[in-house]
């Protein structure tokens, strides 16, 4: 399949990446090469095969509904790139 720069642009928007032109051009070529190689899977008949997301037959791993004290706020916020005593801060997002 031909991978165009428009396709890379679309995927970049979804992934919140904005590649400089030079990097984008190189990435487009590399993705095309990698995806072309992936096409080897087309040679394998998988009709009727159930997609397997979990390899080990674990099921119903559940937790009881009991409250555990929440974390210390100062500790949870300590890594924030913009410090604030109560919350994480982002540029204006809502009114």
């Amino acid at each position, binding site marked *: 399949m031909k991978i165009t720069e428009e*396709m890379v642009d679309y995927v970049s928007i979804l*992934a*919140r990446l904005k590649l400089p032109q030079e990097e984008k051009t190189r990435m487009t070529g*590399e993705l095309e090469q*990698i995806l072309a190689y992936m096409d080897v899977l087309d040679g394998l008949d998988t009709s009727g095969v159930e*997609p*397997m997301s979990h*390899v080990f037959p674990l099921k119903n791993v559940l937790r009881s509904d009991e409250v555990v004290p929440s974390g210390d706020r100062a500790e949870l916020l300590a890594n924030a*790139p913009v410090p604030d005593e109560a919350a*994480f801060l982002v540029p204006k997002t809502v009114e």
Partner: protein
Amino acid sequence: MELWEFTALELGGLIQRGEVSPTQAAQVALDRMAAEQDRNNAFVTRLDGETVLAQAAEVEKRLAAGEKLSPLAGVPMALKDNICTKGVRTTCASKILGDFTPPYDATAAEKLKTAGGVLLGKLNLDEFAMGSTSETSYYGPTRNPWDLDRAPGGSSGGAAAAVAAGECWYAIGSDTGGSIRQPASYCGVTGLKPTYGSVSRYGLIAYASSLDQLGPLARSADDCAAVLELMAGKDRRDGTSLDAGWGSLTASLTGDLRGLRVGLPSDCFGEGLDQEVRAAVLSAADVLKARGAAVEEFSFPMMKYVVPTYYIIAAAEASSNLSRFDGVKYGWRAADYEDLTDLYEKTRTQGFGAEVKRRILLGTFVLSAGYYDAYYKKALQVKALIKKAYDEAFEKYDLLLTPVAPTTAPRLGESLGDPLKMYLSDIYTVPLNLAGLPGLSMPCGFDGQGLPIGAQLIGPALGEAKVLNAAHAFQLDTDYHRQSPVGKEAQAK
């Protein structure tokens, strides 16, 4: 023999018997790190001497008080820097995590601490564990102690290099597609990727959640068994963790291989495999045979599908797992953004390295509207077939034996130019992650340039005891695992 040349269990024994104190051992490690760090760059973060010695003193006190800790109490160790450590910076070797200091320990780290482990620091890796050479680290590449111009493998390159260079007695790495086994092979140490779920992933910063698994790197198979016993077990914080039910792994290391059926997948010994590597792995089969194992070749045609399947699944999960790094809650934030979207885009574009961005884009693509069925769903179907092929193989064989990597350690800079070629070199290791199986890499020889070669033993799910016993048996009859690069590097030059 220097103290750092002992295995972890041997040192643990000396400590138990009071012949060596934990602080003495810690001091040896600190000296070794000081001597090697500038050469191999195995560590991203080294704890300061005071902190390390304080931990050792604490273990000493507990042992003196008669506390039963573990056979490895007081043995210095280090963790790959994608394993969260409370109060110790955890970077994933990425710019984007900045000085992220977790307010929690990974379950595995906590268990080792409880067992008397003495943490030396955090080991270098490919950024977010994505790579096969440890060269994509934001903190500079790690170098192979056997030849400083070569890569130590990856992504747990720092872990393999530190063990090989005698800077720690064991290390914990993570393995998503071979990231413990391949660097173990390149650096001449023993590394085990356990069955998926046997070690809790809580606190392991996720690359590909369905494939990631923590495991030990050490000099010997019995060290790996001892470390795994300390880390394994069901964890209420990881819904995919399980109780392996192995009993004592160290107790199962009898060295007796009589009646063991070992399969050699012929598809792992063909085109693309270096001849010296091939010969070394086949001679390892002979050692197992001499101990009573029956070795037989068989055909495993699924091999040609494993790399694309792996990269589709791993990239897809990575694209989602790495979305949380956005400059809002932790880590690094770009300067001069105009609005929220600009903040996200600048932070992520400047904060991630090229290989990570490549995999995020690839993963986003295979999940995007219109391509999901052709790539992602298809890969999950092939994964089911790969798992089935292994199930069938293990009806006939107890273990499989393959190379770990097609070649020995490449020169630094040699691999990065061609991503697809680098992906292809993961062929022997990735299928185990897809099928969730245990695999061990053990040193089985050297090539003409004096670089270590590894052989991979593969077991059925939860078959760690068999895998470790076969490796232990091999190590009873060989001494590749006791070779050290320290002092030899000069001769090679």
